[in-house]
Structures are given as structure tokens and as C-alpha cells.
């Protein structure tokens, strides 16, 4: 842990907000607004991995996308290596994209079925006008070797690859421009367990070799525990808990984090363990609950929870939590 102390942050996100306007119900109605990301702050140190955990609809994918400018933000600041991304124009954003890339969840729909694997990996080089044709060809070969694909597979089309191999193509494409920062949006959740292990090993190896910084979005806590230095837990557009890997998993504070951890099925979960069961579903982000967003499903909810929204506070060194109460046993 101590060796990371002197690293500086590559990415600083401050009070990030993304709101989506929905279609009006009728001509006179106020349009409803989905607060997909509602004031999220974090920073990621160079060469490290921040895990963003949350269930579907909690805003973690939107957070990843807004960092790359794929979705417009409605407030807040994103500092990437000193540049504020929320104020740069589309033209100025273009060169910055060379330095930040994304790996999508579903390797089946993220690849153009009419391009060969080689063309797909070369595409970023063409778009950003990097190198000559020959240099690009060499770079593609290098990338194929880097992610563990064979040279002669360049001429194949995506449908001729298995899921794990397709994800390798996606990773090669993301690496083409030598980025510093990669958003991994559920990169292994569409894959089988045995293949999942291969891809996670690859991502770890690449991070060490190329000194990459990852934002790792996942709903799978076991994967997060395996790969992330720091973890932030999101619920309904806000971060409810943030800590380094060790303290989050050994000493989870927020009731939601603890419920999430106890809902994970492990090979020993057949043995009777006391589990925290959450009632109901995630509330609708259009009409989010007043006060604490989690109160509708929280076992410890009290009067104050419906009136005041808790803020993210540092409860113990490096361990941030948004809850009115101390950890309850």
C-alpha cells in the first residue's frame, strides 16, 4: 500500500451530474428528469484501478461514459491530467480521446460484424491518423500478440471468434492508441467463468506492462475484490461508500454495501449463514425517495433518513460513507 502514496491522480471528478430529460407526458406537462448521476466525486491515482460497484440503474455505466464525453454532463468537473473535460469543445476533446479508451460489456455487439478483426483494431489508428499504412499494420500485429491472439486471425470476422477472443479484440482496439486511462465497463460479465479468468489475468498483465489506469465498472464484487485498489459503491446516482479495497471488504460500513456483500452467492453459501435480505427493488430514479436514497430498503431507516440526505463523510481514515449513523451491528 505504501508504495502508492506518492502517486498523483490522473483523474479527478468533482460533483459530477448527469440528468436525462424524458419525453413530456403531454404538451403542458413538465418533462420528468432522471438524475442518473447526481453529484459523484472521486479521483483515480496513476496506474491504479478504481472499482465502481452497483446494481443496474445506479448510474455506474453513465459515470464511465461521461468521463469519455460519450454522454454530456450537466454539472461538475472532470479533471483529466489537469485538463477540465467538461469545458473542452468537441474538437479539443478529439485528441484527448487518444489517451482515454473504453472496453464495453458485450463483446458481441461492440464489434462491427462487417469488419475483420484486423480492421477493427486498426480503426482507431486510421481515425486519429497515426502512422503510415505499414506502421499501422505493424502496430496491429503487435497488439494482436499483446492480447494473445494469433497473427493469422486478423483476416477473420467477429462471428468466427468465441466470446473471450472477441473481448480480446475489444481490448486490442482500446490499446491501439496507447491510452493512459481505460474505462472497463463490465468487461467480463458476458463471459463464462473459465474465460473470465483469462481476461482478468490479461487486464492485470497489461496494466503492469503499460502502466494503465482503470476505472473498473462491475456488479460482481468478487471481480472487484480481485482487481481494484479502491472501491466506490453506487446507489441510485450517488456514491454511498468509498474506501480502499481492504477496508471495504473487511469492514464494510454502509447498510447497502453489507447487504450487497451478503447477497453474493459463494460456494459455501449453502451452509447456513445469516444473510441480510433487501426488500423490494431499486426505486425509480425519476421519483427518488426524499432524504437518504436507500432508506426505502434499509433495515435501520429512521425519521431523519427521510428528511436529510446524508453526505459522503470520512468516517475513518480513507473510508468514506454516506449514512447518518455509525455502523450498526
Amino acid at each position: 500500500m505504501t508504495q502508492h502514496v506518492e502517486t498523483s491522480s490522473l483523474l479527478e471528478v468533482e460533483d459530477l451530474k448527469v440528468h436525462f430529460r424524458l419525453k413530456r407526458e403531454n404538451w403542458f406537462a413538465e418533462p420528468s428528469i432522471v438524475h442518473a448521476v447526481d453529484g459523484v466525486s472521486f479521483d483515480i491515482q496513476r496506474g491504479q484501478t478504481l472499482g465502481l460497484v452497483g446494481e443496474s440503474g445506479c448510474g455506474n455505466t453513465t459515470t464511465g461514459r461521461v468521463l469519455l464525453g460519450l454522454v454530456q454532463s450537466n454539472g461538475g468537473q472532470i479533471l483529466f491530467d489537469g485538463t477540465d473535460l467538461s469545458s473542452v469543445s468537441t474538437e479539443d476533446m478529439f485528441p484527448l480521446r487518444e489517451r482515454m479508451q473504453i472496453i464495453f460489456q458485450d463483446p458481441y455487439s461492440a464489434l462491427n460484424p462487417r469488419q475483420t478483426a484486423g480492421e477493427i483494431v486498426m480503426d482507431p489508428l486510421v481515425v486519429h491518423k497515426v502512422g503510415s499504412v505499414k506502421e499501422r499494420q505493424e502496430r496491429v500485429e503487435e497488439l494482436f500478440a499483446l492480447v494473445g491472439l494469433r497473427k493469422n486471425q486478423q483476416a477473420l470476422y467477429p462471428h468466427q471468434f468465441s466470446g473471450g477472443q472477441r473481448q480480446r479484440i475489444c481490448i486490442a482496439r482500446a490499446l491501439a492508441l496507447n491510452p493512459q486511462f481505460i474505462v472497463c465497463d463490465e468487461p467480463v460479465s458476458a463471459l463464462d467463468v473459465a474465460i473470465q479468468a483469462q481476461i482478468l489475468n490479461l487486464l492485470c498483465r497489461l496494466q503492469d506492462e503499460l502502466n494503465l489506469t482503470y476505472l473498473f465498472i462491475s456488479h460482481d464484487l468478487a471481480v472487484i475484490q480481485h482487481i481494484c485498489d479502491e472501491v466506490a459503491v453506487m446507489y441510485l446516482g450517488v456514491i454511498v461508500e468509498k474506501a480502499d479495497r481492504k477496508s471495504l471488504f473487511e469492514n464494510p460500513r454502509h447498510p447497502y454495501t453489507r447487504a450487497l456483500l451478503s447477497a453474493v452467492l459463494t460456494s459455501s453459501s449453502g451452509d447456513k449463514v445469516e444473510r441480510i435480505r433487501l426488500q423490494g427493488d431499486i426505486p425509480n430514479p425519476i421519483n427518488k425517495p426524499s432524504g437518504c436514497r436507500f432508506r426505502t430498503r434499509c433495515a435501520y431507516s429512521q425519521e431523519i433518513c427521510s428528511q436529510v440526505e446524508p453526505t459522503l463523510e470520512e468516517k475513518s481514515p480513507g473510508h468514506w460513507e454516506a449514512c447518518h449513523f455509525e455502523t450498526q451491528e
Partner: protein
Amino acid sequence: MVDNIESEPNTVLRVSDLGVDFDVRGQSITVLSNVCFSLERGETLGIIGESGCGKSMTALALLRMVPSPPGKISSGEVLLNGEDLLKVSKQQMSRLRGKEISMIFQEPMTSLNPVYTVGNQLVETIQQHLPVSHAKAQEQAIELLRSVQIPAPEQRIKEYPHQLSGGMRQRVMIAMALVCDPKVLIADEPTTALDVTIQAQIFDLLKEIQERNKTSIILITHDFGAVSSMADRVIVMYAGYKIEEGTLDEIRNNPLHPYTQGLLRSMLEIKPDSSGFRETLPEIPGTVPDLRNRQPGCPFGPRCTKATAKCLEMPPNFDLGAKRSVMCWLADKDDTG
């Protein structure tokens, strides 16, 4: 022998030598071969394997829902209470489907009809199987929704599938499968599309239903965690074969087939002491074989670290007694080598 006779009446489903072939461009591809198992009353059997290993195909074959053409059940026997489902007439089969044996699918959104209300679809299922009036069926539908813990079922019944959340939709699917209190419930990846907290709720519900009705459940999944929390016995499948069978504890603590061992090793789990940070995970080298051009011998042979010359020959299913079996030459006791 005495033991055998006593356990017999408890057996609800007995599958033997089940095989499915697909006819693709004139080429016959075997996607399922020689699958045998039995299921007891009130028991949960987990079927686990990677995508494409034939676990969903097994479920479809049991219900005779293999898409045909190109698919065809080529061999086998599926005895449900002594009646061979593969031999009964089509009309008879659609009566049994839903009544005696029923299924919950992976994707609740695509399994429900988007243009009918939830109530409509439930009532239709009820009237299909039971001679009741519409009003009576409606009442039953509300009761069923209540039994799967859907709040305010009187309102929900008027809603369309898109108005429900994923967890709710899966509950509706379960309610629909339970219309006639089936003896066997096949759950094909029932929680894969759902969030972890919702998954836990659905599994609790299935367990409760099982306890109440003594239903036998076949749980098909790729997630060993899910199998561990639900199943009594486990079948591991690979490339269309049942390669190992045993109780949950046997599979978990003493897997015999190298594939099962590899699968369990490569599985990530939350560690309470948060050890193993970025450690290299054990991989199973290679990929699942192409069913279109199968090599002779053990299907796992090319990826197996323990493969020997003998593995070029197809291993039989070694029966180790007490419903424990493994399809690997390593289990061959007569082998002097």
C-alpha cells in the same frame, strides 16, 4: 436391493440415454449425447457448465421443445412418473407441459408477451389447464401473484410486462409456472438477468415454494455460487456430455473430473480476508470444442492437463455408486497404469 425398491417411489423423473442432434446444412451435429439422471421428489438438481455445453438443450429436450427442424431428439427416454414423455402424443404433451413439468426461462422480458397484461397471460395459462370461469381464474391469478410475494397483486394484474421491474417479471414467470403445482420445475438461468440482491430474493422464493409443494427443481446455471446455495445434487456438463455427477459436497470438495476441478479453481470468490489481490487466476487453456467437427476421444482431452494416450479413446461413464459418476479414464479402477 431393498434400498433400491424403497427409494424408487420417490423418483419423479428418470432420464436415460437422452440424445439430441441438429441438422445443419446437411450435416448432423450431436449436441447432446447419452445424458442420464434421475430426480427425486423435493430435490434440487443443479446442472452446471459453460455456454454451449448442452445444459439448456437438456431442459428443452425434457419438455420436447427442441426447435425442430433443425433439432431432433435422437434417442432416450424421459420417464415422468413412469410415463415416457418422448412417446406421448403432441396433445398429451401440451397438457403435461405446465401441469406436471414446467419451466422458467432466463429472460423474463422476452418470455412474456408485451401486448397483453400480466393478468391476461396468467388467466390464459390457468384456463388452459383448469376448467374454471374467467372470474375464478382472475382470482386465482391474484392469489398466485401474492404467493410469489408481489405487492398489491390486484393492481399489478392490470399492468403490462414493461411496467414491471426485472425481479417482478421473473416472479410473474414463476407464478405462471406454478399454476398447476407442477411436480418438476425447470429453472433455466432464472437469475442471470437480475441484480445480486434480487437474485437472492428469487432463490429464497424458489426454496420456499419447494418446501411448500415438495416440488423437484432442476436448476440450470453457469454460476457455481447459485448451485451451492440451491442444489442437493450437481451434474457437470461439457460439450453435450454429462461428465460428472455427485452430491453438492462431493462436487465441491472432491471433484474428480479435471474439467470440474479447473472450473472450480478458476471461479472467483469474495475472500473475507481480501487476499489474492491481482494474483494470476488459474485458467483452463483453450476453448470449448467445435461441435461441428468433433475429434475422437474424450471431448475435454485437448484442454486437459492430465490427458494420456488413453484419452484418445472415448471414456465411458464410470459409475461410482450412490448416483456418483464421472466420465474420465482417471476414475478407471481396473486400469493398472
